[in-house]
């Protein structure tokens, strides 16, 4: 994956809780065997409705998505992350993520910015009031800032995940550095587990 250090730009406010992965990428889109081409499927059922925020011209070109609590809840489909990324988002802000979605995000370099409820609400309101509000997410420092509304907050990322995001590291290559330990472990497994 590509390294990511700073995400700077404007945001789309998706003001609802429990946005599940079935909404992010409806199941019809899961039939693809490729890893690309999911941007058209992003929120496709909601985008067909007129007043969906992603259709709002004011937010065209935004690269940050702000969601309500429990963003990405539901199925394990990594296609949800691919769709968000391929549509043009580099980070998602939410007070609470579905754990598999959050984990999948970090494997692809989509930055999951988990902030406290007050920060999430301030950002949501800020972007609703001013679609051009500039937001900066700093992966190294773990901060999200929107100077125009006087907002500066932190978010948690484990040191390992931060390191991987910043360096665009391949998990499998890192794990294979422990291959001798995996070999040794396998000799100790009970025979009935094969």
């Amino acid at each position: 994956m590509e390294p990511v250090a700073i995400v700077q730009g404007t945001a789309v406010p998706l003001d609802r809780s429990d946005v599940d992965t079935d909404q992010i990428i409806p199941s019809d889109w899961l039939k693809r065997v490729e890893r690309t081409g999911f941007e058209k499927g992003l929120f496709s059922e909601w985008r067909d409705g007129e007043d969906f925020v992603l259709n709002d011209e004011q937010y065209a070109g935004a690269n940050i998505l702000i969601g309500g609590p429990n963003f990405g809840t539901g199925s394990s489909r990594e296609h949800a992350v691919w769709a968000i990324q391929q549509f043009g988002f580099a980070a998602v802000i939410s007070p609470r993520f579905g754990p598999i979605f959050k984990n999948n995000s970090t494997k692809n370099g989509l930055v999951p910015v988990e902030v406290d409820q007050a920060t999430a609400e301030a950002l949501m309101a800020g972007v609703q009031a001013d679609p051009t509000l500039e937001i900066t997410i700093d992966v190294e420092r773990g901060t999200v800032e929107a100077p125009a509304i006087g907002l500066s907050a932190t978010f948690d990322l484990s040191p390992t995940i931060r390191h991987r995001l910043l360096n665009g590291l391949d998990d499998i290559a890192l794990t294979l550095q422990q291959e001798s330990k995996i070999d040794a472990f396998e000799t100790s497994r009970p025979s009935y587990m094969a």
Partner: protein
Amino acid sequence: MAKTIIDKVWDRHVVHAAEGEPSLLYIDLHLVHEVTSPQAFDGLRLSGRPLRRPDLTVATEDHNVPTANIDQPIADPISRKQVDTLRANCNEFGVKLYSMGDINQGIVHVIGPELGMTQPGMTVVCGDSHTSTHGAFGALAFGIGTSEVEHVLATQTLQQSAQDRMAITVNGELPVGSTAKDVVLAILGATDTGGGIGAIAEFRGPVIEALSMEGRMTVCNMSIEFGAKAGMIAPDDTTFAYLEGRPHAPKGAEWEAALDDWRSLRTDDGATFDREIILDGSAIAPHMTWGTNPGQVAPISANVPNPDQFDDPAARDAAARALDYMGLTAGTPLRDVPVDTVFIGSCTNSRIEDLRAAAAVAEGRQVKAGMRTLVVPGSGLVKAQAEAEGLHTIFTNAGFDWREPGCSMCLAMNPDKLAPGERSASTSNRNFEGRQGRGGRTHLVSPAVAAATAIAGTFATPADLD
């Protein structure tokens, strides 16, 4: 030091651990299906990496498969391509695959246990969030994304961060007419969709111990619906009796050795949990969901809630939006809501016991005129067993549609879909907007309630039919 079952199973799989890093866990069983694997196999090919343990990897076709006319090629060309891709990948990498029409084919979380592949103390993963089902055997089982599928294919391990330990204790005894599905729906009502985030749950207490393996799988299946990484139930004589003699279960001296080990997989007295929920099982009535996430549940005897009754503004908002999508009016008795389609199936409730429960209600009765019904067994083996017991005749005599195994209308990747505005009573696990077809309205219920609803035409329990 006293340990929970969660720690015991976790600890025995640690291949490598270092301060401040996730642990590297060994994976004993990797289940694969057609939807979340193609990009992972592609990744292996692109990086020139071999599949480390084809012998610990098993694949099935389930999400896309039609449930009728399975002797014909899959009509939808994109579904067909996905299934063909799985076949080609399994062939290339030497993975055992159960294809459409094979008696052992079925929903991935049904076939693992039924073939005896899922065993106590194992780590089990699959690119599917309902992998938590396998926790019913005292396995540590969880769903993963496609990047992690590739990681397991290449290394037979996963990097995992420590989780909270959560105890969910269900005391007392279930009232007559309440089932495992009602237990887990009641748990969802108590935990909401986020209550288990960052945790692995152990289900315990007399109600859980009294459940059959099928019932325990139903409960563990929906762990993900309250956000838990996994759900586990300590293995006991019920578990061992289920496993003994299954094709992949240990045999002879190995069976005895395994039993000795498995009996140690219990939470020690005095072990502590980070979170705890206690429910009174005797108060659990038949439940159903009324909204668009599985935490929006109520007893069937309740009315459609008024959004104003929720204190939390986000919950109030979500409830209002859900009622709008579901086409429901606050205050309507749930029992008065008319239903168009009944779906009995999915990895939550498509096992033999689920079909027996539904058939017991259907026997000698007739499905309401105009009602669409689908009974979709979880696997070829479940289907064969049900037919051997004559359940299919009970269903078809009552007017139910008896189908071939697969995920079917649980997520509508095959032709079994709700039309916009159609309302279903479904034994599956997710009631998200559009989950069973665009614009469809899903209510989650138990198999017995689904069958009773098919007959009554509105939401009903079997007792309501008398």
